[in-house]
């Protein structure tokens, strides 16, 4: 890892340089309080103060709906894809970078998922530090810092960004405009250390994750699953906005206009009634409480057993988005009682 500083007013020059070389994706404001990742057009549209985007950056690597291949009337298979330009995503917070790390594991488990890795291998990340809001749970999930995945990470200080360069790609990006980067001074290092402490003290919501996986498993029959499943709309919003939910459905769709048939993969959600329905009509999670509980168990327990890490990154999207206002912190607190 190499450290540099970048004057804040020179960030536009840096992003312009990156945009010239790669396809640059940046966070932009969408609604009054919502943000989204879009292709870079001009610096004035880039949001630097956003907390979270509606949909995590997973959509850029694992799109909601994608065509895997098509078959024409002569049974010829066309699995070709447009050769996508190498893209760089700017503005990922530590939680979202942890999300990518978890997706990387999930899409490598039992073999590399070609469709995922085709895109993933052609994307770089510029991380950006953030300050927590009332939904942020990263400190509790130990995802408030990231030491992997990113190529460059920018820590916001008063006048400069403390720039951490982790990979050769990050170094390449720096070399696009080398005159912008300086060695950090003693004062800047001190400021960086102070900033870490200030940020650390700003977390208002803490979720006790001690032995959480064990507790959720032990409380398998707790009544609160039933109670919350009455409130839950089973609309699937929490799954769609989760940076680590990676379930998908695969189906064939005849395209009458193109005159072929396409195999499509589309995001799926374990909250759905027929998600666990199998041939013969057996449903592994036929009731609503079972489906509600499953999501919690999977986020905090299931993935951890395989990979030694919960698959919740504490980004707060599910709690912020849920139309029913169901909040993971509250559910976990109730389980602990």
């Amino acid at each position, binding site marked *: 890892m190499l450290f540099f500083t970048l004057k804040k007013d020179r960030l536009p020059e840096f992003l312009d340089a990156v945009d010239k070389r790669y396809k640059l994706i940046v966070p932009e404001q969408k609604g009054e309080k919502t943000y989204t990742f879009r292709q870079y057009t001009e610096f004035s549209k880039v949001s630097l103060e956003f907390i979270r985007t509606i949909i995590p950056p997973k959509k850029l690597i694992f799109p909601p709906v994608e065509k895997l291949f098509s078959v024409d009337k002569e049974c010829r298979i066309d699995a070709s894809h447009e050769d996508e330009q190498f893209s760089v995503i700017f503005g990922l917070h530590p939680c979202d970078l942890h999300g990518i790390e978890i997706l990387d594991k999930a899409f490598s488990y039992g073999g590399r998922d070609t469709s995922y890795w085709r895109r993933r291998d052609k994307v770089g990340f510029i991380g950006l530090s953030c300050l927590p809001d009332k939904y942020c749970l990263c400190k509790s999930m130990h995802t408030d810092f990231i030491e992997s995945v990113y190529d460059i990470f920018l820590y916001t200080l008063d006048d400069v960004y403390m720039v951490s360069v982790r990979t050769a790609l990050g170094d390449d990006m720096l070399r696009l405009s080398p005159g912008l980067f300086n060695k950090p001074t003693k004062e800047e290092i001190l400021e960086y250390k102070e900033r870490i402490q200030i940020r650390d003290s700003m977390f208002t919501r803490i979720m006790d994750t001690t032995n959480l996986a064990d507790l959720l498993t032990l409380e398998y029959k707790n009544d609160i699953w039933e109670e919350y499943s009455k*409130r839950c709309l089973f609309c699937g919003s929490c799954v769609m906005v989760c940076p680590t939910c990676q379930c998908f459905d695969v189906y064939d769709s*005849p395209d*009458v206009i193109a005159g072929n048939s396409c195999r499509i993969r589309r995001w799926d959600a374990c909250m759905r009634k027929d998600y666990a329905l199998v041939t013969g009509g057996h449903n592994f999670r036929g009731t609503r409480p079972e489906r509600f509980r499953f999501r919690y168990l999977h986020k905090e327990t299931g993935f951890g057993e395989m990979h030694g890490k919960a698959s919740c990154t504490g980004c707060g999207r599910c709690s912020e988005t849920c139309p029913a206002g169901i909040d993971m912190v509250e559910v976990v607190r109730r389980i602990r009682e």
Partner: protein
Amino acid sequence: MGKPKAGFYSLTSCSGDILEITNLGEDILKLFDLVEVVHLNVAMPSTGKDPDIAFVEGAVTSMEDEEFLKALRKKVKQLVGIGTCACTGGVIARGPEDRRNWLTDVYPESGAGFDITFPRPLKDIVTVDFSIPGCPIEKKYLLHCLGYLLKGVLPEVPAYSVCMECKMKGNECLLRYRSSACLGPVTKAGCGARQPSLGRPCDGCFGFYDDANKESLIEIFREMGLSEDEIKKRFDLFLERGL
């Protein structure tokens, strides 16, 4: 084997669904390529031929409608309801059951003699092989279903809420961020979250999805400050009659 013959028919409706077909643009030529269109009212004179597959929009509101539909059912291999009126009765099936006084109010002299029944969905009269909801139908959804139906298979359609489609499109939640009484959480997907994508709440024209938690959404609307009457009206527009 020739091309399958398809007919598009209207019962009592605003013709919005047939209009969506005429609005297919260039794709309508593909449709004519794919099937022999024997009847497409508002767009062409009827050929008088019997179809293999009939697409029917509108609700049954008279004995004439009923007899026409029964006769059509006997002629065709597949009968597909298109549009919410055909599927549930639609917006015209709101309100009181007995409407005779409406007729005499509007047409004092001749109204009493009109042939009119309470609007009913097609399934109340005949066997319907497949229903394509929407007010109006979605062109993409229709073409998607057509691909399956012409192969004699039931279409694979989304069995989840509009919320999932809405999030896949990256929209902000209207319920959460704009306190708008959106029916997306209980409504069947398939429209590509058309209204929420334009900032308007979902009205539920595709009907309830299979696992809709209506009770919870009503409670959420109450917490948002909607009156019981307002809530009833939201659900009564499309959802209550069921698909």
